[in-house]
């Protein structure tokens, strides 16, 4: 098992290098001279030229990229913000806990809503509950989450005045953002859980469990669920990644000071190191999350575990 985890971690390195490459390339080809942006409009051409040399911007692409990687790996340094002049890593780390909390709350909403609904839908296939939750799930998948966020502000903040429309400080503040970011994932997890459950319920070993005289509730929770949740687990992991991305929109709507908001502001100010740093950082988080899910897999599914012994 340790060997497996180690191997997976090693496999992550080329992927991360690839992500860094893409991110760097995009920054490289972005129109506009970073030195000029940093110094502002008042700077003389001579000053800009000097800064360019200092930053190494006059050197070939490949040299610049290796320097970027070296700084990233050795010093955890991916540049400084043009605006605040803070190191990008510091700026992101300040904001990251908020984004992580938002995404985690979203996953929590999605799992708590999606898995029970999916199970009940599958066990009562073709019932009214099943049809209703399938239509709701389809609407949930179809609803743009930023629109849902705005509409929930209109209803719950403006009209009813129950919940605050911005910020992320207290549990009351977190309700609307968590629902906004989690709804579409809840819908996806509902659909996945249902179809996975339907598949499992028809298996022979479920009949075996019933033939033992086991209670239907235990048949579902002990025998069916454990099998049905294996594919759902992958989806939960993927959703976590989408939610990290979706945080950009949700944070914008609710004015939440997270990485996403930081990136959107940075785009408007053409503060590219922050944008690229944010993408890199969230992509790394996403990859680690998927790795974690793969490892969890092995604990849930003995067939996979014995492959890696």
């Amino acid at each position, binding site marked *: 098992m340790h060997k497996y985890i180690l191997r997976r971690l090693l496999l992550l390195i080329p992927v991360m290098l690839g992500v860094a490459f893409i991110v760097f390339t995009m920054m490289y*080809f972005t129109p506009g001279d970073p030195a000029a942006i940093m110094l502002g409009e008042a700077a003389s051409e001579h000053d800009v030229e000097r800064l360019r040399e200092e930053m190494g911007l006059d050197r070939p692409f490949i040299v610049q990229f290796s320097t970027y990687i070296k700084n990233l790996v050795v010093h955890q340094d991916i540049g400084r913000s043009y605006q605040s002049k803070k190191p990008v890593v510091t700026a992101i780390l300040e904001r990251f806990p908020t984004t992580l909390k938002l995404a985690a709350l979203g996953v929590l909403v999605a799992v708590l809503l999606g898995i029970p609904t999916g199970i009940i839908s599958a066990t009562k296939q073709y019932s009214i509950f099943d049809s209703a939750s399938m239509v709701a799930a*389809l609407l949930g*998948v179809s609803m*743009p989450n930023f*629109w849902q966020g705005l*509409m929930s502000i209109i209803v719950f903040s403006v009209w009813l005045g129950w919940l605050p429309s911005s910020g992320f400080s207290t549990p009351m503040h977190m309700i609307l953002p968590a629902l906004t970011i989690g709804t579409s994932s809840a819908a996806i997890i509902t659909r996945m859980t249902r179809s996975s459950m339907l598949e499992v319920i028809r298996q022979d070993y479920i009949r075996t469990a019933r033939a033992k005289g086991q209670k239907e509730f235990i048949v579902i929770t002990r025998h069916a669920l454990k099998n049905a949740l294996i594919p759902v687990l992958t989806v939960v992991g993927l959703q976590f990644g989408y939610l*990290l991305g979706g945080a950009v929109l949700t944070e914008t709507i609710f004015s939440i000071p997270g990485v996403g908001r930081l990136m959107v502001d940075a785009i408007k100010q053409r503060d590219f190191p922050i*944008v690229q740093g944010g993408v890199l950082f969230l*992509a790394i988080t996403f990859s680690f999350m998927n790795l974690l899910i793969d490892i969890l897999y092995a604990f849930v599914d003995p067939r996979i575990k014995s492959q890696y012994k």
Partner: protein
Amino acid sequence: MNKQGQKRGPWREVWRRLKQNKAAMVGLAIILILVFSAIFADFIAPYGYDDQDLKARLQGPSMQHFLGTDNFGRDILSRIIYGSRVSLQVGFIAVGIAIAVGGTLGAISGYYGKRLDNVIMRLMDVLLAIPGILLAISIVAALGSGLQNVMIAVGIGSIPGYARIVRSSVLTIREQEFIEAARAVGASDFRIITKHIIPNALAPIIVQSTLGVAGAILSAAGLSFIGLGFQPPTPEWGAMLSTGRNFIRDHWHMTAFPGLAIMITIFGLNLLGDGLRDALDPRLKN
């Protein structure tokens, strides 16, 4: 020679099954209405998309303006109708780009295998490691906003999905006898890929692309919403939402209707996509 003749059978069967699926037909109807209104927007829309009536600013729904007016006194219904042009274009073209690039990469990868396969698939892993909307944001940030760049940005993110589908179809089909037969009569690699492998991978691609168009429209609207998509006065649904947000306290209609338009479109595409999946592969149906 006459492939058309053999092909008609299975597709007719798919269509027959699809027709029986009421939800899928509702989805298809929604999409057809949208395409229709996009094409004939000039005739259907009661006003032009940029007709400003400053005396009638920020009005709620009324008989003159069914869905109200925005902060420049423009008719929201008309802007939504014109907006379907933008959204459908972005959706279909972005998916088109993704299929063209992803499909080619997947076919090459599956067909030639070995090293090339490894390189291409690792590249896809890298793309998959970046959550879609973030990838699109950074591409648009680099290329600049505008219709064309949004299409590219949204398209690139969905390349890996198509590459994987086509690759796995190729891998299963490659070993089958009719490919051996084609090779035996001296067909070129290009011919085998385009005449034999692509048609056989079509079913999963159709399903994926229907859902993909939905995803692309959502992403594009999201980009516009954070100010990275289209610039005014382009009537784009996400951009309209973004404007509406500034008037959210007193003029809910500016936010509600453009979002509803997005939702109905995505809903239609999802219904159709689910129906197509069931119709193309009845074994998957529960």
